[in-house]
């Protein structure tokens, strides 16, 4: 891919402006916090969500709502497996997706002996549900069915190049010392620009009756900024009973994710793949990334998102040319003699 196509390695007019240094190249070892002006920040923090061991308990959703005081946003039966939450939004900062597939558990390669460090205990009561367990868990051919459930707890990606932060006109969205992206709720004026800017559809403007907490302003996961400040684990990761949600330094999480991927591949789960962790992807790598068992779009993720501001230099150039064109047209229509 040429630089022209990707737009990442172009030299930009505002590379030297505060807060925008290396705006779209993103391979700084220190993460995005130094770029945002933090001096000697702590290491970048993030989530590694290993969906292969998610059991769909939604403890993360509950813990998040409870700790952050996120208001209720509708109790509906959505008819999408066990997912009655729907999607991330202003009042949903963790969202567990449930996908039912007519595919066998684990790998379709047969004849591979699978050993995983933590085998799941066999089900104690037969509820007549489709059999499922940890992907690749031992259990013998009998218990495998032509059906699998994928579960994945989605969250804000805390991008290295965050479109929401780039386009925020008030400076309400800011880069914390932990490299995360947070809304300052006392500054946001609810312009809503971050909402269409996010390539993952995470952030939204809160709607509700007058008097609802933070109604009218943009809201999303803060990676529990308040808890990070006192060395605490974010609520969702703390509540996760299977360590599907792992919190820590992004560098270390990347290593952990790579190891986990190797284990799964070695165990025959060839379809396991990491999503978002690549520092060379369209958003410069995400602070919250995932191990998935199918293509990203199956889980509702964009397959290959690119931060919209990567094209912004070209957009401004075109807008400038258009403006000059209009001025030239205006001058021209007044030129010439009056009739």
């Amino acid at each position, binding site marked *: 891919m040429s630089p022209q196509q990707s737009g990442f390695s172009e030299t930009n007019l505002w590379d030297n402006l505060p807060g925008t240094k290396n705006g779209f190249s993103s391979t700084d070892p220190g993460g995005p916090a130094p770029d945002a002006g933090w001096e000697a920040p702590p290491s970048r923090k993030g989530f590694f969500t290993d969906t292969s061991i998610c059991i769909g308990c939604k403890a993360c959703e509950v813990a998040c709502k409870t700790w952050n005081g996120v208001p209720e946003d509708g109790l509906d039966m959505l008819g999408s497996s066990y997912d009655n939450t729907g999607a991330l939004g202003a009042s949903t900062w963790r969202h567990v997706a449930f996908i039912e597939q007519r595919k066998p558990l684990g790998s379709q390669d047969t004849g591979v002996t699978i050993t995983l460090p933590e085998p799941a205990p066999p089900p104690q009561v037969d509820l007549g549900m489709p059999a499922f367990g940890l992907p690749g868990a031992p259990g013998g051919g009998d218990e495998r069915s032509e059906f699998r459930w994928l579960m994945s707890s989605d969250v804000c990606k805390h991008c290295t190049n965050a479109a929401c932060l780039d386009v925020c006109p008030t400076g309400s969205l800011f880069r914390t010392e932990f490299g995360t992206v947070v809304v300052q709720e006392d500054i946001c004026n609810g312009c809503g620009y971050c909402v269409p800017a996010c390539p993952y559809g995470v952030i939204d403007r809160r709607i509700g009756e007058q008097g609802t907490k933070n109604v009218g302003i943009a809201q999303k996961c803060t990676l529990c900024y308040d808890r990070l400040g006192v060395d605490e684990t974010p609520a969702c990761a703390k509540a996760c009973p299977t360590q599907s949600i792992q919190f820590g330094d992004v560098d270390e999480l990347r290593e952990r994710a790579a190891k986990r991927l190797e284990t799964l591949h070695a165990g025959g789960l060839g379809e396991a793949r990491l999503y978002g962790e690549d520092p060379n992807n369209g958003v410069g790598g995400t602070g919250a990334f995932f191990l998935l068992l199918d293509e990203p779009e199956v889980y509702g993720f964009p397959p290959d998102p690119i931060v919209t501001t990567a094209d912004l230099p070209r957009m401004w150039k075109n807008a400038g040319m258009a403006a000059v064109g209009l001025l030239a047209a*205006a001058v021209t229509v007044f030129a010439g003699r009056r009739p």
Partner: protein
Amino acid sequence: MVPDAEFTSYYGRNVVKPAPWAHDIPAYLFLGGLAAGSSLLGAGADLSGRPVLRRAGRLGALGAISLSMVALVHDLGRPSRFLNMLRVIKPTSPMSVGTWILTAYGPGAGVAGAAELARLMPFRLGVISRLLDFAARPGGLAAAAVAPAVASYTAVLLTDTATPAWHDAHRELPFVFVSSAAAASGGFGMLTAPLAEAGPARRMAVVGALAELVVEHRMEQSMGLSAEALHEGKPGKLMQASKVLTAAGALGTVLLGGRSRTGAALSGAALMAGSACTRFGVFEAGLESAKDPRYTVVPQRERLNRRRAAAAADTASAGSAAAASASQANSASAASGGPPGSPQPTAAVHTNVGHTNEEIR
């Protein structure tokens, strides 16, 4: 490449979110363009001695920009915090840049418009009237200098998003919007100024209308899949109406604009309506394209597949020894795995596949 008919999504739900903006915003897109063009016409009329066109341009600009401000503030989730827009100057935020463009534009347009209002009063306001008369021309010229930016930045406002039908239009949309602004303000001039003075307005209207029709067509060709959003449903009807009204208005302007006051007024009204339809059509098409995951997933999936194919071809076309070592490096990073967290294999994969999320099959 022909788009895949089939794609995968999560229960058909949207991936990106549509902008939470009501009709205030497309109304502003139209009014902002009208104000900008009117300021240009007003300033030109001022310098070329066309008093009625000057008055129409200045008053039109004042009215349109005032309504724009109301629309913009009304659309905020917290209108009382409007002034927070002035906390920062951010070139990465078109809304921030736009705020400062409007801040630069507003005072000049306001003074020029107020001067015309004062002259319409049955009585003079003493020193205020004299001050306004004195400041009208500098104000009007200052507004005209910023006006082209007012007309064009709104395109960047829309295209600097993940909304497929907006972002995909980023090459042409600024040209569509300034053309639309020229057509609307030219139309407004024809509607409000007598035939003898409206010559520049007619030329502005025709140039704008023709440019809009041509560039809009080109935009649809270059957008890719999301151009479909401009053809379907309500946005499709709006864009169709825009083309008919704009073409009819331009034709009417050429045939009748210089001869018949009624013909000029009707043509001008058609051009203004056409401009409004363009703004609402583009706006609505964006919202629809965000709500349908197809527009987000299919192009990204194709891009990803192309890159994977290119990476595979690179590997294959390299010398056999190099290819063997590269594939060894790849499989080493995936399957056998070096020491935990060894950055070496990962880096090799990144170099080979560019932005591709690491995936080995």
